């Protein structure tokens, strides 16, 4: 009797575990691919997309291509093999990614691009991009105003092979160059890196001690420059960044950084998932392929409302 009960329990248990295993596989999969999560910006993107997709009843797989177009290509192969229903992608290069996205399309998997564009249309279903140029002009205007429209400044540029590094720099200069008394005494790439921005800023400070401001292509470089300025006892230099990270938010609230520009990464990724959901259910997103999201200037007036690349309403 006791034995039979044990058998029955075991059988029930086995059935339960089998039936547990199946519904998960039957759910639709969304694959999310972004650059490395060691940058909190991309981590926020991935988390935003994952959270929204799971709310909408999808299973998710989150990967990072580490800005390596070849690795991205392999990840898309894996997504195709895994039978993904849609891909949310922050790509590894405007030209280098076209073929991989096309491959997904040929396999019947729609791609929804965020943050960075690709140099082709009709391949991805949607490309939602922050308006980096508009954001850069916002940052530059705040920078010029804080500088009093005059003085020597330094620009730290992002990785020069990255499209956004060039767009942001162009946006900065289209504003700043209108003021003849604003003089750029040094322009260096610090490859988006905090460590590199720190060492380069220290050297630049030696060559040009008479600087009044630093404008950086992203927040990690702004934080590196800030550390170098603080080490040199220069608390008078105006620093402006780009991205809207929590570190720079805290520095703004502490009065160390003047301003940054928020790209709504979290919201953008969520929106891409919503469009994917609509496309899968209705066959169309109902919107143009290219969608631009405006950036927001963050300074001491609104920094308190910023959390993980999202501004509280």
């Amino acid at each position, binding site marked *: 009797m006791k034995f039979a009960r044990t058998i029955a329990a075991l059988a029930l248990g086995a059935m339960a575990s089998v039936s547990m295993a199946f519904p998960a596989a039957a759910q639709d999969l969304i694959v999310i691919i972004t650059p490395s999560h060691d940058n909190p910006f991309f981590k926020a993107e991935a988390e935003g997309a994952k959270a929204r997709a799971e709310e909408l009843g999808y299973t998710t797989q989150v990967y990072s291509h580490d800005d390596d177009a070849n690795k991205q290509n392999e990840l898309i192969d894996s997504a195709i093999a895994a039978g993904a229903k849609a891909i949310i992608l922050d790509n590894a290069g405007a030209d280098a990614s076209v073929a991989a996205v096309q491959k997904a399309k040929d396999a019947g998997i729609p791609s929804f691009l965020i943050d960075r564009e690709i140099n082709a249309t009709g391949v991805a279903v949607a490309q939602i991009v922050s308006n980096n140029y508009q954001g850069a002009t916002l940052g530059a205007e705040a920078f010029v105003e804080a500088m009093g429209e005059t003085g020597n400044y330094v620009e730290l540029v992002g990785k020069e092979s990255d499209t956004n590094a060039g767009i942001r720099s162009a946006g900065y200069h289209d504003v700043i160059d209108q003021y003849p008394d604003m003089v750029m005494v040094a322009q260096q790439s610090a490859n988006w890196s*905090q*460590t590199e921005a*720190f060492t380069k800023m220290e050297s*630049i400070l030696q060559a040009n001690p008479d600087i009044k401001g630093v404008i950086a292509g992203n927040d990690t470089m702004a*934080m590196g420059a800030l550390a170098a300025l603080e080490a040199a006892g220069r608390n008078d230099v105006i620093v402006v960044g780009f991205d809207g990270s929590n570190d720079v938010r805290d520095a703004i609230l502490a009065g160390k950084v003047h301003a940054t520009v928020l790209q709504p990464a979290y919201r953008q990724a969520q929106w891409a998932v919503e469009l994917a959901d609509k496309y899968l259910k209705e066959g169309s997103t109902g919107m143009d392929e290219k969608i631009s999201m405006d950036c927001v200037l963050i300074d001491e007036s609104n920094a308190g409302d910023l959390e993980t690349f999202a501004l509280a309403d």
Partner: protein
Amino acid sequence: MSNATATAKSGSTDNTSVLLLLLKLRTFIALIVVTLFFALMAPNFVSVANAIIISKHVAINAILAIGITYVILTGGIDLSVGSIVGLTGMVAGGLLAHGLQLPMLGIIIYPNVLEVVCIALLVGTAIGAINGLLVTKLGVAPFIATLGTLYVARGAALLLSGGATFSNLVGKEELGNQGYPIIGSGNVLGIPVSIVILVVLALVAAYVAQRTPFGRKVYAVGGNERAAALSGVRVDRIKIAVYMISGFCAAVVGLIVSSQLVASHPASGETFELNAIAAAVLGGTSLSGGRGLIGGTIIGAFVIGVLSDGLVMMGVSEFWQMVIKGLVIIAAVVLDQLQRRLAASNG
């Protein structure tokens, strides 16, 4: 001195021996040449403040290169140092920001800065020991063993925070863990702490290499491993020790870098190993082992450091900086080969 002896040996090769001397001093001459060049070309290059800044930047690479020189002297290589820089920085940052969490006991211990430093140094040395054990006891080629730990340590650094940065590592008074930024931005008699660390490590490393039995064994293992083993050197122990030294040096750099930024970033230290190997090679360390000096490595690190800082101060683009650095490394190795051939033919 060596010029005089060479001349005494054979008067007919006078020109060759002068050339040989110049080649021997090539790294030092290169350092003088690049320094003079930037003194003329870069604004405000010649100043005490700039010399200190350059030395501070060089310290990071030179400390790594000291450890790597020991490994290369035994005929090995250590590719994992950059990742150890990242991991030890993250260990220190994590302990300062979030403490040592023991969920089993439900407590969080906040070690003070000295304890944090010791733990980070232990972690670095332990990874070095793993490298050494892989190379000796399991017979894995040093290139592959340390390539493996390069990935493992980098992955571990990312896992510690889920990829995030530990920032604002100033400590809290109530936790008793203040003072971490001193390593990166503090001064001793006007000299930054990182430079003091470099000087102390370089002197100790040079003394150990030249004047102790351990140092002689390191050279012996790299010169001819079999002969060393036959004459009673415990080769495995020497090899494990040099990887531990390298791991320790990398941990020191991990602490300096994260302390300078008052933040630990898991990707910190990427490609540092290549700069350190370049410094050792520039300084005349032979990649096949048995030949090289700590002093040469330090000068090699200064050549690279003066070059990169000077180019930044001149406003040269990042792309040209890379090209120039590469050409200097190639030139150094070509000159090294030339010197060896000349020395061989000169008897």
